[in-house]
């Protein structure tokens, strides 16, 4: 492949990987604390709507982005009330959250369909953008992509080197032992659920503020589910999540470019590729022993000590 085909392909890879990256990081954050959240798709949908609506009414894209995160946090809060407050089943609550979130966003978003709001546009980073090959791929993107470069590193640092990060992981690995050491695991699970929801919401907001500048029903179109699978692929490691998200973004971007270049492969097959990849990733991760990286208490509710 010549550079003039490869560079746009890789730049598109980064862009279509970014919403999935935010969502995957959110899911990792949540699951590290021991709470399984299958509601990513619904949380993203609400985040996308909130982001667009706030950007439309206030005219500020950054407010919109923040609102997307906060709306995601609110949805995460619902999951928290069910699973941490009432010890509800985490799988069922997550699935319900997906149905609720997508439905709610479609319902509330109807008046906003067909409107256009201001959104993020690509900004070249000084100096970096001029690096040959890498510059046009990584540093001629919109500001939210630059934000997404920082989050995985920050999250990795948080888990590894901060006290709160270690305690959050303890809540996900062995809440009883953590309790014996005087850590209120439930509080750290709340942190996981709320912050996780925040990042998932950001992923949604990316879709309506940067990827496109409009709102549509089912804008997330399955990206939340891909994020759920990518958590396993990433072995719950924020840095590996980057590779996973870009892999998916790459396949999505690649299949369209293959079509545009005039291939004879049926389009149905090409459009199936990202989902085939999802399945292969799950098989691969299980085979590679990804399950040993699973937070040990994932999906297990903390019984109140009485």
């Amino acid at each position, binding site marked *: 492949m010549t550079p003039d*085909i490869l560079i*746009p*392909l890789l730049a*598109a890879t980064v862009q*279509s990987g970014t919403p999935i990256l935010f969502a995957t990081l959110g899911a990792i954050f949540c699951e590290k604390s021991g709470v399984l959240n299958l509601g990513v798709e619904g949380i993203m949908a609400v985040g996308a709507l909130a982001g667009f609506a706030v950007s439309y009414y206030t005219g500020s894209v950054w407010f919109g982005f923040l609102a997307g995160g906060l709306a995601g946090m609110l949805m995460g809060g619902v999951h928290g009330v069910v699973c941490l407050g009432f010890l509800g089943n985490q799988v069922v609550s997550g699935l319900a959250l997906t149905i609720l979130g997508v439905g709610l966003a*479609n319902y509330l978003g*109807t*008046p*906003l*369909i*067909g*409107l*256009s709001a201001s959104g993020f*546009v690509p900004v070249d980073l000084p100096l970096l953008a001029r690096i040959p090959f890498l510059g046009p791929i990584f540093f001629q993107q919109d500001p939210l992509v630059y934000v997404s470069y920082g989050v995985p590193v920050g999250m990795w640092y948080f888990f590894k080197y901060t006290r709160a990060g270690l305690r959050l992981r303890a809540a996900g690995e062995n809440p009883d032992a953590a309790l014996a050491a005087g850590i209120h695991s439930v509080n750290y699970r709340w942190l996981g659920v709320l912050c996780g929801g925040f990042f998932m919401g950001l992923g949604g907001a990316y*879709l309506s503020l940067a*990827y*496109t*500048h*409009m709102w*549509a*029903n*089912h*804008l997330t*179109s399955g990206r939340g589910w891909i994020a759920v699978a990518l958590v396993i692929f990433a072995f719950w490691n924020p840095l590996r999540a980057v590779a996973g998200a870009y892999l998916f973004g790459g396949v*999505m*971007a690649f299949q*369209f*470019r293959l*079509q*545009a*270049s*005039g*291939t*004879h*492969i*049926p*389009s*149905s097959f090409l*459009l199936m590729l990202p989902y085939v990849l999802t399945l292969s990733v799950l098989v691969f991760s299980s085979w590679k022993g990804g399950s040993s990286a699973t937070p040990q208490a994932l999906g297990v509710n903390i019984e109140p000590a009485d």
Partner: protein
Amino acid sequence: MRKVLVLLVLALLVAGVTAQAAEKKMKIGFVYVSPVGDAGYSYAHDVARKAIEALPGVEVKFLESVKEGADSERVFLKMARNKYDLIFGTSFGYMNPMLKVAKKFPNTVFMHCSGYETSKNMGNYFGRMYQARYLSGMVAGSMTKSNVLGYVAAFPMPEVIRGINAFALGAQAVNPKAQVRVVWTKTWYDPAIEKEGAKSLLDVGADVIAQHQDSPGPQEAAEERGVYSIGYNTDMSSFAPKAHLVAPIWNWAPYYIEVLNSVKDGTWKSGSTWNGLAEGVVDLSPMSDMVPADVKATVLARRSEIKKGDYVVFSGPVKDQSGTVRIADGVVPSDQDLLKMGWFVEGVIGTTK
């Protein structure tokens, strides 16, 4: 005194009843597959609905975002039970549910858009959008510098394939070197995916983007890259003021009013209607100032030729992608052949699968 009051009340009641009988309004229902705010397909139908609503003696209702299949059957059933006189269903997948309901309610007239089934009280109709697409292809072919036109398309079915072919023939009529590259998204309204599809076409050198979906996603992509675009359904220039050249558009109001009047005076007959530029159901939106005057003149001249029937978009010789003659010299294919079209004309790059 009481007697007078009672009489007065009675008189009022009688007057009320007779007034109601005289005012018996015709009930008309519209069922759309997407939200009316989509600036696209359903919006175009809804513009006609509003025109009907302004007429006297009608009661008009619409339902948006009604899923094809079982959901739509429930909606048609409810409308028919509520004694609607005329129901329009504007999506292909409404066809079988509508047919089922139509058989049970012979007093309601059902009109289905874009299908092929008819019954005693169910007719179908659509527009020859390919005629307007041909004209938009002429604009695109005149404006391109790279001779590569990008076409973001929804599903590989005859309606879409026919539109792409007409677009390509229009472009080739003014620019023999023009080629049309096609990307399928398998979506009708997904701005993110459709924009991505458009970008991939821009990356292989397209400098005009056309689309057959309802979202303005591809328009956005063209605007951001500073190239031209061709809209669809309605004038999409508000989404891409610097890119949008022209759009093939729907204009349903005259036809809907005609159907309404025929149902009202009892002359409605079941059948299939496939109107085009001549009847005004499809047309071109006003062309942008970026289109030079001579191009505008050529396109408008061809428009009036098609309108008068002096020019036919699909007329032989037409070759397919492999160079085989599919429509022989001097032959004009029948509507049946056009409705089944499943191959691309020469100069289109992409697959029909």
